[in-house]
């Protein structure tokens, strides 16, 4: 079945088409959810909520651009709604708490996907969301500011803090590994 047929079937509330859409895209979208969630259960909740939104709003898809990109956008928006906006503004952790020793990027490339996911999951909510949106989804700070209702400068500072925290966590991992 082509993507167009699947979408039309979903608009008609055809259960088989909806199940096929879920089968095709849920795996990738779960990975997206894991990056935003604090733990696996939260990721699954976000995924469920997101696909309910997908099926409820599929009639608004105008067959412009990729359907996967449209689904991903809904998943990201659903993930963002999980967190209160205050999380982005009122993070208590300051830059000064982390050492200013930049870690070589190769250190990250030596880590597996699961480790990287765990590192991202360990970030505070605000850092994690901004890091995901900027570093992985590719949004600009201006777009992130609009999405989250924060200022551009807040978005930039959250990103910097996120990177520093990731570096710090990697250093800790290395120390543990060396033991």
């Amino acid at each position: 079945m082509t993507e167009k047929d699947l979408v039309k079937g979903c608009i008609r509330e055809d259960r088989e088409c909806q199940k096929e859409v879920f089968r095709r895209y849920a795996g990738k979208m779960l990975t997206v959810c894991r990056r935003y969630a604090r733990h696996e259960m939260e990721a699954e909740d976000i995924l469920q909520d997101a696909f309910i939104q997908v099926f409820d709003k599929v009639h608004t898809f105008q067959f412009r651009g990729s359907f996967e990109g449209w689904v991903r956008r809904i998943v990201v928006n659903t993930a963002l709604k999980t967190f209160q906006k205050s999380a982005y503004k009122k993070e208590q952790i300051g830059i000064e708490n982390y050492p200013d020793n930049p870690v070589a990027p190769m250190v990250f490339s030596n880590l597996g996907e699961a480790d990287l996911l765990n590192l991202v999951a360990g970030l505070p909510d605000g850092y994690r969301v901004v890091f995901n949106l900027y570093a992985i989804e590719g949004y600009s700070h201006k777009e992130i500011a609009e999405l989250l209702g924060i200022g551009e400068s807040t978005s930039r500072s959250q990103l910097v803090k996120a990177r520093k925290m990731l570096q710090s966590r990697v250093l800790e991992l290395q120390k543990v590994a060396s033991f």
Partner: protein
Amino acid sequence: MAKIVRIGQQKRPLANQDIMKPNHPTDRIFREKLGDLPADPPMHLWEGIERRRTPAHRARLLARRYWVAGLLLFLLVGGGLLWGLKNNASDLVSQPLIVSTPVAKSENPVSNNAQTTDTPKSAAEAVTPATDAPEGGRLNEKKDAPTSRAPFFSTKAAREKAGSGANENQTVKTGDHSIFSQKNTKSVHADKSAIEATGVPVAAISEAQKMEMRLDIPARLGVHSAGVTTSDLSKPMVSPLTMAPEVVAKKRSPRLGCPEIEKGKKFNIYLDAIVAPEYARRTLEARSPDHVGYLKARETTEKSRFAASGGLRLSILTKSGLAFRTGLIYSQISEKFDYHIGNAQQITITPIQLPDGTVIMDTTIVFGDRFITTYNRLHLLDIPLIAGYELGYEKWTFSLNGGAFFNFLFRQKGKFLSPDLTPVSFSSGDAGAYPAFRDHVGVSFFGSLSINYALTDKIKWVVEPQFRYFPQSFTRNDYLLDQRYLTAGVNLGLRVQL
């Protein structure tokens, strides 16, 4: 809305700051490894999705998706049905039961008690007791004797008197009714079936038969004869069985048509008292792309609760079916604002007395989340100006209405998030509150299909599905978001004719 940038593909130009600063290597690694990470589809979650998307949920979705089309279809079908019924009603118009026939007036009216000059023999022959009407009701012709059939007498005395003489022309009055009896009238055998049948079209009965019917019926009814008038054939017979054709037609075949207006009046006036449970659909739009985030924050923290309206309406209904309505309508829209402030702790200190008399203070600290919950209310007072078209069918009345509501009072009170995402109060009565809303919401457009059922002659039950669209935003032009409404509900109430 931001577009997703695929890994390895630049689908949009980078912002200036991003161009100047190269891709951070850390970001690149995370993006390459986690961006499109495949995973097995978690099919165990599919059942959860199926459970939550119940048939009721799907039905609600379809209703929300197609409600405008549904409402338009409903109004179109309702209007078409009314129009079709009205046009088809002409097939149902019936013939009158009894022909309105002319009655001849005699120059020599003969009363019940006196005045026939028939010979006894002819009178005897002619007498027909009222309780024993002759079959077919014959008129015997006597050329020689100035006899005439003294038609119908209900008393013996009257019968005897009828034999005492005869006038050439006699009419027998039966109460208010006159029957023509003409000299030298040939006897005519009335068609019994024609007399007994009701609703026989006029064209199927000959003139002679009509005459017999006129003569026969009072006898069958036992009606007293009084006198006979002749010769004025243009005057209609008045008989208890004769009804105005339009009355007969209505009684035999009710049809959809223009409403009945009281005699002597050009229009009827009604007073409607109505209340309506409603659903209010709110639309929020950011006036600038920079405020999309704020829009989402408000959408997340506010939910629609209920809406309702009620009021009094005066209707003027004309004979042509056109109706004009005005009045005073109060409406309310209620929404709920839920906002998570953050973590909070609640400390409770309870004094406890020990057995030895010592009092200690037991301190309990409860950690939890703190929310603000407020029920926001929007109040409107409007004057409607509505035109409608009404049709009646027996006890039912249907009308299609459309018009405008003119708002002259708009009050609001509650809380929402300000553009800097902190909860603030809005209130029309407080100069210090956040100034988001207008003083008036302007004109709104109204449409409805009213179905009324007559409980009595003057009182009708009203059921009226309706909708109302507010084209103007409820918020001021200098506020970041455009907030509009569309309400739909069912008016329920009573209509009293004044």
